[in-house]
């Protein structure tokens, strides 16, 4: 590459052709423009006339200059000019090039710029014919240096992605040890963070050749996991470098699924870094409901795994309902059945009290029954239903349970095991034995790994009836093997029984820390802070969700389980690595988040030795500018054509075409403008409200839209002709923009490639449906798939309708009001004759005495779904002639007629509701009137 200041050429020898330009000048100068040949009878009068000026058979100088300029531009253009060629001109050209990238989560913040930079380096190396190697330090290669031609690496570049962890000093040192003694030039794309082992690696590189470090000037941001304090979610944001940085506001956002399952922003706060400060705090106040939904906290705009903090149980607070025995007596607080439970649960759960009825309405995660023996039948049915739906029923024994007959003869559905009558007392004044201690927890017990304090002893308990399945249901037992805690799975939920009381009457268990940990393990309570190593001892956690370096959720990078101790060790400092990728880890209904940035993480800027050149990423990009030169030459040649035309007097005729050509060549292409201002909104409202107007949803498919419009035009005409409804011209409605409330009826042809409506549009649509609007969905495919997934339009319909507030559907029953709103009909064909679905009648609809019709639902079915392509059957052109053929011959015409009748019935149904249904009451009304 030859460099001329800021412009270099890829083929500089072509510039030699510029020397030929004077020859071209001379050649062009000698050649006058070609004459026009013209037939002209008046030539007889011209004979003998002479030109007054003879010099014009030379090409004018400015035309010559134009042509020379065009030729020069062509030559320069083909010589391949490049603006801002890579200035690393002093780089050694004979050494291989090693590109080392940190490729960590901190690099993800400007990864595209890094890949651009690498691409430039590779392009440079390819031009110089140097072999190159790219080594991401988060993923060092097996061997030493994968040197390959730089062109190969350019193709492989898109496959190199940052990892959501930082380079491991041991891995890196390991790799550096394999380097051998080849010499190479090193370019190190640093992520800008201080890290152990940097200097050693730098020395290793420096020993083998020149080293350049490239570093971004953008700050790195990180977000520590949220803490729940004083009713607020508190978050700490970190930044690096901090010394010279000014005041910065960061937007921290809580994200999670809304009730419809769409991820959205649930709350936000602003963290303000004071000048020079490395940390900033913010607090987000979230309702418990929203807090439980929050799945992640992110720094808005920061594309990096370090700026994302996944949430686990620590934030999710369970709703726990406490139901103690009602004895109506004043009791000492400490003897209360629920006192210790309350103390144990308040830090980690939201408690609700009340009657069982009220509690079930609140649908808590856990219901605790403390010494409650018998429930009313209806109560226990409902409780069982709730358990089967996934609830956790936690029961504690007590004097009442011991005295009752619950689960004696047969297993009570709300008890995990059968119980023996009475219970037993050990180590009391009237017994011989000692209070029993707990046996260590078994392998498959949820309590596995919890250490048992010495002072936990059990005096009394209820005893389980020996049973073949008792063993598998026991999750904690006394030293003598009698079950202490039993559990049974019921549906998707669990029933757990503590065979002791929830107060200290029967055992010292509720007084110990073990009680709280056991509740945590049972997922009754959630951990208020980061788990300690001993909490997780002996547990194995399955990866449930992963996160990539850019902070996007994804599949977990690891598939096998992780030992709890490792997890506990990694969490505080965010010590993630390939073997332990960040993400969510789950075990038995509990979740632990392993974040890139842990609660104790700190980030600091990398400090490079003075001798190492550090460059930014923002070198001016190499830009080939051959295109502008060639385009300029083209424009000049066009101008030359115009000039020649003008000179030869042909411009008059040719100017039109030439101007068009020039305009096409030069005019910027303007995008289609689709602006709609407020006045047109008002106009739409006026049009829609001054008369009844049928509307159809614009699908974006011009043909479908035109047909829908023609169909509604036809239906409007038939309505005007046959009924008192006289609709205006139909309107196409853009559900993304237009207000829907004006239209009693929307016809929605479903196409397979229709875009899904936005959230706002869904909001409008649901409001419309709830407000009494009716949407006629038409898949136009004769419903061949029975609304199944196998037809593309049906599939699309399902996707469109999923977030809609659509009630249960049924095929139009015989006595639906649509069958008699105007005409008496039993078929509802369009161009096809398939089944049609409407809102299902309520289950208790009954046929009145002596009436042919049931007393059906009030109001209008919000949706009608079919695939009969009604618009095609209704469609007429401007003269009122049918547009599409329906069926064949007279039978087809009959079908069209029935389709029209269906349309009229439909609009009648839309406009009058269930008026015709009320005919059911006519006999009663007449009776009441005394006739």
């Amino acid at each position, binding site marked *: 590459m030859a460099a001329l200041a800021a412009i270099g050429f890829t083929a500089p020898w072509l510039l030699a052709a510029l020397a030929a330009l004077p020859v071209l000048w001379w050649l062009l100068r000698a050649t006058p423009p070609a004459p026009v040949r*013209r037939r002209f*009878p*008046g*030539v007889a009068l*011209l004979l003998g006339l002479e*030109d007054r*000026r003879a010099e014009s058979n030379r090409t004018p100088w400015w035309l010559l200059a134009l042509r020379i300029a065009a030729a020069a531009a062509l030559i320069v253009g083909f010589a391949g000019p490049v603006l801002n060629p890579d200035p690393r001109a002093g780089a050694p050209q004979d050494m291989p090039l090693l590109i080392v990238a940190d490729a960590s989560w901190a690099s993800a913040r400007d990864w595209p710029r890094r890949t651009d930079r690498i691409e430039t380096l590779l392009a440079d190396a390819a031009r110089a014919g140097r072999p190159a190697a790219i080594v991401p330090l988060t993923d060092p290669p097996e061997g030493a240096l994968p040197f390959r031609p730089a062109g190969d690496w350019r193709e492989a570049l898109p496959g190199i992605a940052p990892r959501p962890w930082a380079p491991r000093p041991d891995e890196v040192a390991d790799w550096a040890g394999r380097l051998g003694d080849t010499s190479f030039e090193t370019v190190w794309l640093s992520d800008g963070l201080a890290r152990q082992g940097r200097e050693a690696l730098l020395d290793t590189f420096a020993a083998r050749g020149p080293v350049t470090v490239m570093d971004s000037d953008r700050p790195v941001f990180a977000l520590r996991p949220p803490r729940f304090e004083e009713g607020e979610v508190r978050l700490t944001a970190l930044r690096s470098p901090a010394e010279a940085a000014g005041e910065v506001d960061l937007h921290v956002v809580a994200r999670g699924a809304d009730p419809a399952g769409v991820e959205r922003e649930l709350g936000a706060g602003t963290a303000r870094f004071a000048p020079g400060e490395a940390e900033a705090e913010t607090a987000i106040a979230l309702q418990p409901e929203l807090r439980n939904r929050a799945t992640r906290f992110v720094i808005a705009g920061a594309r990096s795994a370090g700026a994302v903090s996944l949430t686990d149980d620590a934030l999710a607070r369970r709703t726990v309902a406490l139901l103690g025995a009602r004895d109506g007596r004043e009791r000492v607080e400490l003897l209360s059945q629920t006192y210790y439970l309350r103390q144990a649960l308040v830090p980690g759960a939201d408690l609700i009290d009340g009657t069982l009825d009220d509690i079930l309405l609140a649908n808590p995660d856990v219901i605790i029954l403390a010494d409650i023996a018998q429930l009313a039948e209806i109560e226990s049915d409902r409780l069982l239903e709730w358990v089967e739906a996934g609830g956790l029923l936690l029961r504690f024994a007590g004097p009442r349970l011991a005295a009752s007959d619950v689960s004696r003869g047969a297993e009570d559905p709300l008890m995990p095991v059968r119980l023996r009558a009475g219970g037993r007392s050990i180590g009391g004044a009237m017994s011989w034995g000692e209070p029993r201690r707990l046996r260590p927890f078994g392998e498959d017990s949820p309590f596995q790994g919890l250490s048992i304090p010495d002072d936990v002893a059990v005096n009394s308990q209820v005893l389980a009836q020996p049973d073949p399945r008792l063993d598998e249901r026991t999750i904690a037992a006394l030293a003598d093997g009698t079950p202490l805690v039993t559990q049974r799975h019921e549906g998707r939920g669990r029933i757990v029984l503590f065979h002791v009381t929830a107060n200290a009457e029967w055992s010292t268990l509720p007084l110990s820390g073990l009680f709280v940990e056991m509740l945590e393990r049972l997922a009754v309570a959630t951990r208020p802070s980061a788990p300690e190593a001993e909490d997780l001892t002996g547990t194995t956690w399955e990866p449930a969700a992963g996160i990539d370096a850019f902070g996007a959720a994804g599949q977990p990078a690891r598939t096998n389980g992780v030992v709890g101790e490792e997890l506990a060790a990694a969490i505080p400092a965010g010590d993630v690595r390939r073997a332990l990728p960040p993400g969510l880890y789950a075990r038995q209904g509990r979740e632990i988040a392993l974040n890139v940035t842990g609660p104790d993480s700190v980030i600091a800027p990398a400090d490079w030795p003075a001798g190492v050149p550090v460059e930014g990423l923002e070198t001016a990009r190499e830009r080939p500018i051959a295109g502008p030169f060639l385009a300029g030459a083209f424009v000049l040649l066009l101008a030359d054509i115009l000039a020649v035309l003008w*000179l030869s*007097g042909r411009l008059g005729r040719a100017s039109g075409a030439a101007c068009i050509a020039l305009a096409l060549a030069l005019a910027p292409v303007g995008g289609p403008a689709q602006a709609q201002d407020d006045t047109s909104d008002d106009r739409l409202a006026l049009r829609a409200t001054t008369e009844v107007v049928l509307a159809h949803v614009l699908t974006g498919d011009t043909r479908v839209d035109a047909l829908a419009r023609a169909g509604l035009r036809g239906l409007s005409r038939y309505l005007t002709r046959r009924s008192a409804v006289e609709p205006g011209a139909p309107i196409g409605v853009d559900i993304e923009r237009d207000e829907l409330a004006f239209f009693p009826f929307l016809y929605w042809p479903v196409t397979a490639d229709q875009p899904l409506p936005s959230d706002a549009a869904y909001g409008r649509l649901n409001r419309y449906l709830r407000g009494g609007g009716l949407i006629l969905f038409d898949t136009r495919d004769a419903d061949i798939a029975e609304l199944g997934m196998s037809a593309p339009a049906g599939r699309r319909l399902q996707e469109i309708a999923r977030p809609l507030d659509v009630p249960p559907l049924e095929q139009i029953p015989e006595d639906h009001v649509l069958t008699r709103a105007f005409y008496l009909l039993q078929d509802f064909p369009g161009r096809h004759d398939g089944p049609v679905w409407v809102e299902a009648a309520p289950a208790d609809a009954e046929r009145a005495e002596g009436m042919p019709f049931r007393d059906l639902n009030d109001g209008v079915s919000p949706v009608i779904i079919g695939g009969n392509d009604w618009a095609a059957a209704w469609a007429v052109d401007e003269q009122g002639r049918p547009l599409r053929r329906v069926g064949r011959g007279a039978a087809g015409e009959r079908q069209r007629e029935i389709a029209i009748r269906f349309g009229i019935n439909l609009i009648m149904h839309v406009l009058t509701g269930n008026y015709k249904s009320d005919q059911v009451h006519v006999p009663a009304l007449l009776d009441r009137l005394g006739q």
Partner: protein
Amino acid sequence: MTAGPPSPDGTRGRAQALAAPLPPLLAEADRLVANVAFGEHGRRRAGQGDEFWQYRAARPGDPAGRVDWRRSARSDAHFLRETEWQAAQSVAFWVDGAQAMAFSGRRGRPEKGDRARLLALALATLLIRGGERVGLADGLVTPRAGRLQLHRMATALDSAPEARSDGDYGRPDATALPPHSRVVFLSDFLGPPEAVERAVTTAADRGVKGTLLQILDPDEEAFPYDGRTVFESMGGGLRFETMRAGDLRARYRARLAERRDRLTALAARAGWRFGVHHTDAAALTGLTWLFGALAPTVR
């Protein structure tokens, strides 16, 4: 033109000619003529010789068939009915069929030759309705009266302009003119003026009165050319090259005006009329001028 190949011999050919609709040119001429109000010619459409002149006593030798018995019955003598003797004028047309007449300066504008033939035929139609005899000056169609004559003229004018094209510029042929007839010359008169002068002089010598109508394309009038141009005559016989056509415009127009002056003077000398018609103007303007130029003398 006629629907089939013109084979005058044989029953089929004649029947076809008979059944054929008006030739296109004639039809167009008829349309044009329908717009012209008739002058003195219209009152004599009943035909020549129909007008009563006088009764005279029969003389020996008169054929018995000519005796007007109704008049004779009112007296003892026999009378003959004599009609006015009405001699019709002969009007001959010379339509320039040279290649120069095939010029049209712009697409959609009629050729000069087309306009000339249309005017000739339209005027002939008017004259035939007035009872005159029309024909072609070159003797191909001798002057006759009657509507059939229009067909003959149309056929002769329309049939083979190529066959009649005699080079780049036409030379008026006045050899076949009957004495004291009228003649109409339709041409662009861009060719050698001597031929026109000779023809006019010859005709005038034989007592023939006439009209010269110069038909020009607007481009020939305005000379809207520029730049380096090679001008060629329509037949390619003449060639002229210029570097800057725009410079020649004024001189060309001066020469054209000079040519027109010369023709005007010639017409004035012979007692003829000279007019100019442009092909971008309506044909009706040319027809009315021609009709007016002819009318005072034709009776």
